[in-house]
């Protein structure tokens, strides 16, 4: 008898989603789908607004990664103004973006995923949280909290507040950096590096215990996309796109990201509010690709900062071509955190970082603008069209998490097929189905604050709707 298992909501991720697993007559998984169940409508509701509001308006898409939207949106607005923004403003925006990636990665790795890594996938769900981590490994939990706080503090020192700072504006930033604030940020660099390196050592010890998960957590060939510098180094703010295949071979390189519509199509799924972008030359759904930390580290020639480069060299030894298991998003995230801190220090030590020339002013000189940057979860596109008066006519935002939609679905199926069997649900096997989603760190936008208290219900249904089995949490 075929059955459907529903995991709703998926826990310890950012946003609302559910997973359905379909079993066949023999009790084997026949399909598994990842549904994003919330509808936002931002592209529609910005229509008619003055484009100068767009950075802060779109930042409200999310409370975890508002800075990513600020950056991509401000770049799209710079394109509308058609101005060259002052170099110091570029550096300040980069520091903000890196701090955002640092804090978001810390949240994903320590707060959301480290419970699985430290306590095991089958541990008691009541302990599988940051408090459970603190009880077993206080330093690990402290490092996580400290690193997230450090990133958030840099954001607050630059933008005035931790969440939704309005400091990034079309043409640059609204206020220059002061020396005392820079020194406060720099004072934490050495500590941050030590904590990340300590965590990297710990991760390298434990990931060996997760062989079955590494083999099955969205471990399949796909393309990888991200931005790189002209020299092929990791670039989060202003790079050109590079796409590599599963062997690590470059498929497309130094592609101007503003031409994204030529090679990225967006498919609409009937069972999810999340669109599924695909690589047009390969079509849908063969044009499956991944973005984010794992993709970025798979496609670069080198990271570009000394300590992160050392770690990356080791990471590259995992597999001969690209690292295909999404489990290693965790690893890549830690290396990127190291990169972020090193890069932040480099920018803050730049002699021009305190310059007060941080904004270019102009009237809108173009009616179409595209802004692209790397968000914690991958490449983020903001594409705007305005009228001659500067009012928004149309917007298209391709969100980092969306790029991974096809891969997440495929990953859910792969994990479910491997771990979910029979008619009796075991909590540990369903946790693995959720954990594969967590490796991607999807930001299904905002509202995670309530997630810890939300009950998770999984039902095993017969085709006629009869409840065969049920598991409740919370």
């Amino acid at each position, binding site marked *: 008898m075929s059955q459907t298992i529903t995991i709703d909501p998926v826990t310890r991720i950012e946003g609302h989603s559910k997973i359905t697993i379909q079993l066949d007559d023999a009790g084997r998984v026949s399909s598994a789908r990842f549904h994003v169940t919330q509808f936002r409508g931002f592209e529609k509701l910005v229509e008619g607004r*003055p484009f100068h509001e767009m950075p*802060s308006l779109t930042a409200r898409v999310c409370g975890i990664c508002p800075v990513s939207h600020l950056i991509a949106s401000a770049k799209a607005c710079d394109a509308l103004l058609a101005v060259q923004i002052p170099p110091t403003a570029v550096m300040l925006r980069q520091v903000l973006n890196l701090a955002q990636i640092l804090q978001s990665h810390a949240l994903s790795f320590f707060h959301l995923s480290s419970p699985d890594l430290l306590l095991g996938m089958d541990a008691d769900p009541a302990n599988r949280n940051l408090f459970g981590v603190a009880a077993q490994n206080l330093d690990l939990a402290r490092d996580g909290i400290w690193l997230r706080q450090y990133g958030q503090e840099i954001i607050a020192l630059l933008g005035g507040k931790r969440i939704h700072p309005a400091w990034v*504006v079309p043409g640059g930033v609204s206020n220059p950096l002061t020396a005392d604030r820079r020194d406060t940020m720099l004072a934490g660099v050495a500590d941050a590096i030590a904590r990340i390196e300590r965590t990297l050592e710990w991760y390298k010890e434990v990931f060996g215990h997760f062989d079955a998960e590494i083999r099955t957590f969205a471990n399949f060939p796909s393309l990888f996309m991200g931005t790189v510098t002209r020299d092929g180094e990791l670039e989060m703010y202003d790079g050109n796109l590079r796409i590599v295949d599963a062997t690590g071979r470059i498929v497309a390189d130094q592609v101007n990201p503003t031409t994204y519509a030529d090679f990225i199509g967006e498919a609409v799924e009937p069972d999810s509010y999340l669109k599924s972008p695909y690589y047009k030359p390969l079509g849908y759904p063969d044009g499956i690709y991944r973005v984010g930390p794992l993709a970025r580290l798979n496609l670069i020639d080198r990271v570009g900062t000394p300590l992160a480069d050392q770690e990356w060299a080791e990471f590259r030894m995992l597999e001969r071509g690209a690292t295909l298991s999404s489990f290693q998003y965790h690893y890549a995230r830690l290396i990127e955190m190291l990169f972020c801190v090193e890069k932040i220090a480099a920018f803050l030590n730049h002699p021009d970082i305190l310059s007060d020339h941080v904004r270019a002013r102009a009237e809108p000189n173009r009616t179409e603008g595209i802004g692209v940057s790397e968000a914690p979860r991958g490449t983020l596109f903001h594409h705007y069209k305005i009228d001659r008066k500067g*009012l928004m006519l149309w917007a298209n935002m391709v969100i980092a998490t969306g790029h991974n939609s096809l891969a997440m679905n495929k990953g859910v199926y792969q994990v479910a097929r491997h771990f979910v069997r029979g008619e009796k649900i075991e909590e540990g096997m369903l946790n693995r189905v959720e954990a594969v989603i967590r490796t991607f760190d999807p930001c299904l936008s905002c509202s995670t604050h309530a997630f810890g208290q939300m009950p998770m219900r999984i039902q095993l249904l017969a085709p006629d709707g009869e409840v065969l089995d049920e598991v409740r949490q919370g």
Partner: protein
Amino acid sequence: MKRPFKTRVRTLKIDGIDVGAREDETILELAQENGIFIPTLCHLEGVHDIGACRLCLVEIKGTSKLLPACMTYAEEGMEVITDSERLTAYRRQVLDLLFSERNHVCAVCVSNGHCELQWLAEKLGISHVGVPYLYPQLPVDASHSFYTLDHNRCVLCARCVRVCDEIEGAHTWDVTGRGVECRVISDLNQPWGTADSCTRCGKCVQVCPTGALFSKGKAVAEMTKRREFLPYLQQMREGRR
């Protein structure tokens, strides 16, 4: 409006305190002189009062009606109460209705943090709006080369209308329609950028209490306004007459 030119003194009580007032003094002016806070929104130092917003309503002993402090003159023996549960309830209701009538989305407004409506809501302890939002679809007029008018944030205080008429002398602004259909308009209800009478002085922008009128190119929370110039301008003009 011309006030009677007399300087006779009246004695009265505000919140139980004995005060002396000139005959041509309003209760609002008297309260401000004595350091008593009465919330205001449409009132603006330098232009005449119209008593439109009803936030400055006060209780006066002997009359069951609430009267606007900005339009009520001090009288001998009056006993005025500026703060009571009843008044607070009415003032909150006024703000509730203002917030629900248009799209006042503070978080993404150019005047976030510098807005009189927002400040008043905070001051009067508005934590939520008690009536359903109307969510009207209102246009943004960005036709002017320097400034933008966003009807979504307008509270119809008519400060722009008065300052343009009384100080600048252009009378570009006026209002049309009634009730929820009421709108601020420029010249003959045409795009602001095509209004010939506009001198582009920007006084209307500076006196607007919210983000309804703002300078072009301002991002969220960037629009701060300067209002100190008004009483000075008026004084200078009166001196010359």
